[in-house]
C-alpha cells in the first residue's frame, strides 16, 4: 500500500514531538524545604546624649567675656561609628534652654564660631544686673552604628578664644577672654545624659 508523503511527514513529526516530550517524570523525585532558621546580630549599645561643656562665665572688671568656640569631633575610623554634633550656647541658670545652636555638623569637620551680640539678644541682661553666665556645650549624636568593640569615648577638641563683641547696653560689655580653654580634648568633661 502506498502511503502519501504528507502522511509520512505528519507521522514523523508526531513521533518527534512524542520523543521530545518523553517525560522526566519517568523518574521520581522529592524535595524538602527547610525553613525557620534565623540569625540576628548583636547591636552595640549606642551612646546617646553625649554632651561636653565649655564654660565661659567669668566676670572681669564688669566685662562679659566674649566667646569664640572651636570644636572638632574626630572623623569616624573605617568601619567605626560616625557622629554628628551640635554646638549650643545656653544660660548657666537655664541649661535646658538653648539660646543658640550650630547646625548638626559631621564628625571630622571643625566648627568655629564667634558669638555675637545678636546671638543672645533674646537673653539680654536687664539693667542693674551685673552678670549673666553662659556656657557652650557640644552635643554629640550618633549617626551610624558604633563599632563592635566601641569604647564609647568620643574625643572632643574645643576651646574658647577671646573677642570683644560689642556693647550691649546698660554698661555691660563683652570683654577679654577668661573662659575655660581646653585644647587637646575634653573627654573627661563629657557625660552621657
Amino acid at each position, binding site marked *: 500500500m502506498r502511503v502519501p508523503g504528507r502522511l509520512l511527514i505528519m507521522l514523523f513529526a508526531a513521533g518527534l514531538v512524542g520523543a521530545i516530550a518523553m517525560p522526566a517524570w519517568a523518574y521520581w523525585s*522529592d524535595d524538602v524545604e*527547610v525553613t525557620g*532558621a*534565623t*540569625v*540576628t546580630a*548583636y547591636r552595640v549599645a549606642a551612646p546617646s546624649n553625649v554632651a561636653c561643656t565649655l564654660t565661659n562665665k567669668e566676670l572681669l572688671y564688669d566685662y562679659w567675656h566674649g566667646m569664640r568656640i572651636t570644636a572638632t569631633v574626630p572623623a569616624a575610623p573605617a568601619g567605626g561609628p560616625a557622629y554628628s554634633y551640635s554646638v549650643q550656647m545656653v544660660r548657666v541658670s537655664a541649661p535646658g534652654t538653648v539660646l543658640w545652636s550650630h547646625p548638626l555638623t559631621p564628625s571630622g569637620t571643625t566648627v568655629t564660631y564667634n558669638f555675637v551680640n545678636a546671638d543672645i539678644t533674646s537673653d539680654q541682661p536687664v539693667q542693674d544686673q551685673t552678670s549673666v553666665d553662659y556656657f557652650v556645650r557640644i552635643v554629640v549624636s550618633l549617626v551610624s552604628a558604633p563599632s563592635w568593640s566601641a569604647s564609647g569615648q568620643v574625643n572632643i577638641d574645643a576651646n574658647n578664644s577671646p573677642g570683644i563683641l560689642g556693647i550691649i547696653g546698660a554698661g555691660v560689655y563683652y570683654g577679654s577672654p577668661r573662659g575655660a580653654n581646653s585644647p587637646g580634648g575634653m573627654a573627661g568633661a563629657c557625660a552621657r545624659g
Partner: protein
Amino acid sequence: MISLLRRRWRLVLLLAAVPVLGAVPAWAYWTSTQPVPDSTMPLGTLDLTVNDADPYTTFAFPGAGAMYPGTSTAAVLTVRNAGNVPLAYYAQASATDPLGAALRYTVTGGAVTGTAPHQACGGTVIAGPLNLTSSPGPFVADDTTRRLLGVGAVETLCVQAALPPDAAATLQGTTTSITIRFYGKQVGQP
C-alpha cells in the same frame, strides 16, 4: 390454485424465518468466568525527609539571637530516605539580608561542639566554608554530585554559621532568614 397458495405459504414462512435466523444469539458460544481474589501491585515510594518532616519548618540555630564577630552557631539536620527506592540528593540554600551574606557556612558530617555563642561542627567537612545570597545557591553537593542515600539510610548534616571577625558594624541588630532546599532524586535520574 392450491399450488399458488402453497408457494405463498412458503414465502411467508421463509420471511418469518429470516429474522429468527438473524437473531441467532451469541449464547450459542460457551463462556465461563472464574473470580480471582483482589490483589495489589506494590509500587516503590521515593520519600526524602529532613528531621523526619517534609517540609521542615522549625529549623533553628541555638543562641543565634546575638551574634557578633568571631561567634558561631550550629545545628544538626538529619536527612533520611524514608521511601523504598534508593535516592540521591543535593541541597541549595539562600539567606536574606546583608547579614545572611556575611555569615560563613560550613557543613560537616559530625555533631555540634562547644556552646553558644561559639558552637562549631565537628567531623568531616562536606561543604564550605561558603557564603549565601538571596538566590538559592550550592550548599551540599550539586545536581551532578548528588549524595547517595540508600533505602532507610540516614545522613547527619551539621550546619555551622559563623560571623567573621571583620564583619561590618552596619550589620548590628540585623536579622537573616536561612532557607535550605533538599532535592531528592531517583538514582540514575539524569
